[in-house]
């Protein structure tokens, strides 16, 4: 007897309401998990552990490269090393970090990798008429400031910017700490320190 009753709920796919709802859900789901991943990544930059890992790797890299640098470009080399270590730490998850590493590879091997990358990169649709020209202009400037992000849409650019800023802030904290350490335990011979203590 019960089997005669048609079970409407058993065939939901045929219902147009459900179809529309289903499509919307599948559209939203990857976005929310993606943004969760993104937030986790950004939070990572703010942890002490990440800063320590960065500082340690930076010091190793600086010790290795110091032997080859001339004094005039030493500061620039330090900055480049600091950026490279930062990009490596990002583990290839962001555009800006990949752009930094690619640029370095280009300088060394002189291959046309950048040309290939720009061909593969999808151009963003930039016909957002609702933004004023001022906003558009500033977006362009921002896109140029974040490495490898010239042609991103605003949502993607925002994502890269958030990560980039968090990483830069960590870079400043780490390098400040290292500088203070080196300046503190600097070239003070212990004998002098002892002498001044005795005299006062």
């Amino acid at each position, binding site marked *: 007897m019960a089997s005669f009753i048609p079970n409407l709920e058993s065939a939901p796919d045929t219902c147009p309401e459900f179809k529309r709802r289903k499509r919307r859900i599948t559209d939203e789901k990857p976005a929310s998990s993606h943004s969760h991943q993104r937030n986790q990544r950004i939070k990572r930059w703010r942890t002490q552990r990440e800063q*320590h890992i960065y*500082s*340690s790797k930076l*010091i190793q890299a*600086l*010790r290795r490269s*110091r032997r080859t*640098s001339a*004094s005039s470009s*030493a*500061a*620039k*080399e*330090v*900055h480049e090393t*600091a*950026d490279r270590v930062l990009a490596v730490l990002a583990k290839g998850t962001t555009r800006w970090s990949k752009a930094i590493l690619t640029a370095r590879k280009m300088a060394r091997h002189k291959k046309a990798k950048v040309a290939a990358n720009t061909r593969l990169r*999808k151009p*963003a*649709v930039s*016909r*957002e008429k*609702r*933004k*004023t020209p*001022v*906003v558009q202009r*500033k*977006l362009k*400037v*921002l896109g140029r*400031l*974040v490495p490898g992000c010239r042609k991103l*849409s*605003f*949502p993607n650019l*925002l994502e890269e*910017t*958030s990560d*980039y*800023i*968090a990483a*830069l*802030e960590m*870079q*400043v904290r780490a*390098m*400040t*700490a*290292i*500088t203070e*350490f*080196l*300046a503190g*335990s*600097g*070239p003070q011979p212990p004998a002098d320190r002892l002498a001044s203590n005795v005299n006062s």
Partner: protein
Amino acid sequence: MSSSRRSRSRQSGVPRITDDQLAHLVSKLQHLIPELRRSRSDKVAASKVLQETCDYIRSLRREVDDLSDRLSELLASTDMDSEQAAIMRSLLM
């Protein structure tokens, strides 16, 4: 709803951004910038938020420039030996 219908007719899959989405993204950006975090107002203009963002990134990079300069000097003068490096690593870890 109407904007999503319009975006489907475009050749690429990039959806057109609505006013609400733009405002939302701008407010997210606002929270990243210390200057703007201090002002409790949520209604900072998009152009100002973007300007402050650009300025902030530039100032961060300038700081790293100065720190790199200082670090290169310190590294040259202290000639960090393996003992110092070990001390530093243990302090950091």
